[in-house]
Structures are given as structure tokens and as C-alpha cells.
């Protein structure tokens, strides 16, 4: 089995294409979920400038999400309710499928390897990372763009607020991307990844108020939600990469535990 390195990583909290206006034409029908995924993928591919050296069929996409483009699903329902059956929007329907974002990333960046979208309640980004690492370690792919994408959904935000007996939680949306490479490459080595997710009470999944993160260095405090583990582990990676390249990150919650280790860093 080959070693797997992290060549680049990116956090995207806002949809801002000012650094990449050339992508907008291809995104004119895209929803925020797709735009977030595209921006995050663009940043790691641009930073690493690997595409000239890669075979398109050897670059995979792995995307993890908890609820996918759920707001687009509701936007489609709006057209169904307001315009009637037979008049619903085909564009919204085709963009409401969970793998639409991976399809856009594949098309816009000409990546023709495996495009895998994994939906899990707990840590889908870590699950996607685990699958990408396995594919690279086995030699099935040369590189992989691993994405964690979450879109805010007012219906779930309101439900979470009502369940917790407080105001609706603040909307959170964002994406992270890691660019992985198999073989002898520069960057922190991806070590052990563990994702032990178990069935849990729905309030834990909706509120995520008992989820905690820890690492071998200080992490920023993040508001609870499905985006928090994506950002937390990426903050950990970036801090570790800036230092010795060795360290670990883990999450604990009523719905299980997840862990990721790094290092040492290859030069």
C-alpha cells in the first residue's frame, strides 16, 4: 500500500468568486451547495497546480455531506406546490440530487476518476476522506479531491432552535477541500482515519450540542453543527502542516467518534 499525502487544503465560508470569475459561466444554474463545492475544489487545485501532471481518469472526487442540497429540494417542492404537478422545475430537481455537486466539480475541472458522494448523519467528510485514502493507497487513483460540503437550511435551523428551546440557530454553510496524492509526495502524510458512527437519538444529530473536538494543538471554537467537524479537522491539518507535520484530531459525540492522525511531513 502506498503512502498518502495532503498536498493542499481550503476552507470556504462565503460564496465569493472574485478570485475565479471564469467559473461563473459554468455555474449559472448552480445552487449554493454546488458553488461551495466548486470554490473549495478550485482553491486546492489552483494552489497545487497539479492538473497539468495528472491523467483525468486518475483523479477522483469524494464528497461527504450530512443533508446534501436540502434547500434545493425544498425549492423544487415550492415549484411543485406553487405551479402544480407537471410544472415543477427540472433544473431544481436535477440539482437536488446529492451527487450534483460532484458532477459539477468533475465537469468544470475535467476530473474523470471515481466521483463518490457519501451521506451520513455524523462525519461524512471523514468517511469520504477514509475512502479516498484507501483508493490512493491501493493505487486505484493518483490524486483525489475530498470535499465536505454543508448548506444551511432554514427548516432544519428552525427545528433545531425549537427543539433546543432557543432562537433558531444561525445559518451555517461552507465547504472544505483537501487534495490528496498517493505515493512519494510533499505534504503531511495522512495517517490513521477512524470513523465509528452509530445510530443515535435524532436530537443529537439535529443539535450536535454534545459533539466535542480535540487535537494535539489548540483549535478555534466553532458553533455546533454539521460543518463544525469539517472546519475543525481542516484547522488542525493546517496548523499541523505549518509545524512539525505530526499530530492528531478527534471528535466525540453521542453518535460515535472520529479520529485522524497526520505525519510526519514529507519535504
Amino acid at each position, binding site marked *: 500500500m502506498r503512502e498518502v499525502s495532503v498536498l493542499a487544503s481550503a476552507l470556504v465560508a462565503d460564496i465569493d468568486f472574485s478570485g475565479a470569475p471564469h467559473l461563473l459561466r459554468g455555474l449559472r444554474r448552480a445552487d449554493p451547495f454546488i458553488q461551495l463545492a466548486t470554490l473549495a475544489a478550485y482553491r486546492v487545485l489552483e494552489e497545487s497546480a497539479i492538473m497539468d501532471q495528472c491523467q483525468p481518469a486518475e483523479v477522483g472526487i469524494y464528497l461527504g455531506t450530512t443533508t446534501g442540497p436540502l434547500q434545493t429540494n425544498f425549492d423544487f417542492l415550492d415549484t411543485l406546490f406553487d405551479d402544480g404537478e407537471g410544472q415543477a422545475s427540472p433544473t431544481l430537481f*436535477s440539482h437536488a440530487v446529492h451527487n450534483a455537486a460532484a458532477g459539477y466539480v468533475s465537469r468544470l475541472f475535467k476530473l474523470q476518476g471515481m466521483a463518490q458522494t457519501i451521506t451520513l448523519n455524523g462525519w461524512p467528510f471523514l468517511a469520504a476522506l477514509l*475512502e479516498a485514502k484507501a483508493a490512493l493507497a491501493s493505487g486505484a487513483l493518483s490524486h483525489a479531491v475530498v470535499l465536505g460540503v454543508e448548506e444551511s437550511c432554514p427548516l432544519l435551523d428552525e427545528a433545531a432552535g425549537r427543539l433546543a428551546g432557543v432562537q433558531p440557530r444561525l445559518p451555517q454553510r461552507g465547504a472544505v477541500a483537501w487534495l490528496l496524492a498517493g505515493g512519494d509526495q510533499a505534504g503531511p502524510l495522512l495517517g490513521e482515519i477512524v470513523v465509528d458512527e452509530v445510530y443515535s437519538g435524532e436530537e443529537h444529530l439535529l443539535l450536535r450540542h454534545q459533539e466535542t473536538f480535540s487535537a494535539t494543538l489548540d483549535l478555534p471554537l466553532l458553533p455546533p453543527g454539521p460543518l463544525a467537524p469539517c472546519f475543525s479537522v481542516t484547522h488542525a491539518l493546517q496548523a499541523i502542516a505549518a509545524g512539525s507535520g505530526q499530530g492528531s484530531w478527534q471528535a466525540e459525540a453521542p453518535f460515535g467518534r472520529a479520529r485522524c492522525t497526520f505525519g510526519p511531513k514529507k519535504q
Partner: protein
Amino acid sequence: MAPPAIAVTGMGCISAAGATLAAYEQTVTGTPPSCAPVPKWLFDTAFSFPVFMAPPDPLGPRARQILAANVLGLTEETVHRTVLLALEAAVQALAQAGLQPEDIRDKRVGFSLGTTVGCGFNAESYYAAWRQGKRPDLAPVLAYYHANISTTVQALLGLQGPVAVVTNACASGTDAIGLAKGWLETDRCDLVLAGGADGMSRITCNGFASLLLADAQPCRPYDVSRKGLNLGEGAGILCLEKEQDARRRNAPLCGYVRGYGAGSDAYHPTAPHPQGVGMVIALNKALATAAKTIQDISFINGHGTGTAANDLAETTALATVFGRQQVPLISTKPLTGHTLGAAGGLEAVFTLAALRQGRVKGSVRCLDIDPALPYKPLPEHAEAELAGAVGISQSLAFGGGNGCLILEAVHA
């Protein structure tokens, strides 16, 4: 060191073509199931296109017993229909593998299942009220979190191990089996239940109607008169184990998952690449991982939805890979409808069933093969003896995803 061989020790399926594998095998040799507009008991809809429904009550006695005894507090009324379909197929697969859930509580039992409908928010009445400013009871929102088919079915069976829900649209079931193969090869678990499940949904019905992909008549994959697909529902699940583990416990061997490959079209949000470039990548990768050549393949269970673009792209890809060699190609969707995330799971089961029989009948309602298709399918009234035990089950999906499995049967 070569990865371990991945054995199929059990198969479960439920669809319009039969509530069990035995029922499906009777359907194949008998009268094809009929399709009809969505029944009123499921939901009210103006969608008039015919669909293929699984039995209204999908649970067999054992699955019903498991649901009734569950400690999760779930009932048939509070669980999404996709979960019920998956539970039934999983129980069938375990039973054929000679296993009861209680036998494997000390094992690492993974669940890798594909779906589309199962991961959506399908409680329309809740959303309809909510968007009007009402604040209905939260039960449908909480139930949404129970619709994650892998974690919920795993919990209902009292099992532990890795979980993934693959949401690659219509290739989800195929890709979920490919993922499971990797789990066993890297020793992440001892056994995996892998495949796909999807229940019928009003959202999906209207979505496909809006895309003008649904046929008002029974679908006719590969036929020159084809006008689109019919939606269906169901679940197909394989019980997978490392061959050495299966032999150690004298498990029945149905076959093997020999290879898996995937590739992307990088072309269009919904339409397949006209040359099927992603499917060509998937086919070649699957053959390579299986260490097989096209000469080893004796049967292809195609995606064969019956849409003009799908059937052309798929057969173009097959012609690219197979050249002049033609092995029997059929679609089983005229028996089940397009079951979306379940399709790859169901069709893997059907592929192994055909390979075990050693013969296959042509695609139902493919009477006049489209001359534009570069690779010719087996038409309805034809039958073929299969030259070997190795076949292909393949899927194409929205988003340009393509997945391919190389399956090998152990003859019954």
C-alpha cells in the same frame, strides 16, 4: 500481496418483479409484471405515468419480527418505506448466507447502501405547513434522521461496523457494492451488506416528468420505439465476505465480486456523454481490478433505462470496449422499472442469478432493436446460453457518474 477474493454468500431482493429472489426467478421465466399509475394508497398524484411497485407491505415475517422487537422505537408508520425495503432485502441476504443477526453480533458488519429517495426530506405536508409560517409537530423532521438507511438498518439488526450511504444517484447501488469490496479487502470489517434501496416518491415522479424522461407506456430499453423510463422501487442487497471466512464457516457461495471500476463523464448535469467516456473508464478499471479480459465476460446486465440518450451512450461505451466481440446484453428494467439508488443492488443480484442459471432471456419489450445502437442487445424473444460464469452489471447516473461490477457466479 493480492487482495482476498470477495465472496457473495447471500442475496436479497424485493421489487415489482418479486418479493424474493425465488419469486424474481419465476417472473423471469413467466409473465412480466405490469406497471400502472402510482396507487392511491401510497400518495395522491396527478403524475399519470406507469410505475413498477414493490408489494404494498414489503416486510416478510422475519423482517417484521425484527422491526417489532426493535429497541429503537421505530414502527412501520414512522420508518421511511426505503428503510423497510432495505431491511427486508438485508434479512433475505443474511438468511441465504445462513446467518441470523444474533449470530454475528460479535462481528464487524458493515452496511454500504445506495439510495436517492431515502436521503431526501419527503414529508411534504410538514414543509407545506412550515412554509406558510406554521410550526407543525417536529416528528417528521426527527424521522428524517431515521431515513439514513445504513445506520438505521444496521441498528435495527443490532449490528456494528462501518456504515456509508452512497448517494451517487442511479449508480448508487453499484458504487456501494464497489465500496464494500474495498472494505473487506482492507479488513475494515468481517462482513458487509451492500446494495441499494429506494421507495417511490412523489418528488421523484415529478422530477423525472419535468425532465421529460418518463414514458407514458411500459418502457422498452434498446427498442427503436423507446420513449423513456418507468420509475420503480425496491431493494437489492448482497451479503459479502472474504472467501476464506466464508469457507471457514461452510457458507453457501453464490459467487464473487471480482472487480469494480468507476469513471466520470465530466460532461453534463443530467445527460450522459454521447460516447460514454465515463462508462469506458469504469469498464476498463473494473476489468483491470478483476484481472479479466473481455474474452472472460459472458453476459452484460446493462443500465438500459429506455431513454434515448442512456441506451445510446451505454451501447457506444460497450462497443468501444468490446469491439466486435458481442456477448448477450439485456436490461432488467422492464421487469422492475428504474429503481434509482436500488438499481445497482437489484441488478447485481439479477446478474448473479442469470450467471448461475447459465442462460438468459432477452430484454422484455425490446422487439425492434434500435439500429443506431453500436452494440446490439438480446431482443425479447431470444434466449442465450452463457459461455461462462463471469458477467458485468453496470450503472450510469445523473452527474456523469458511471459504475461497473465484474461478478462471477458459483453454479447452483
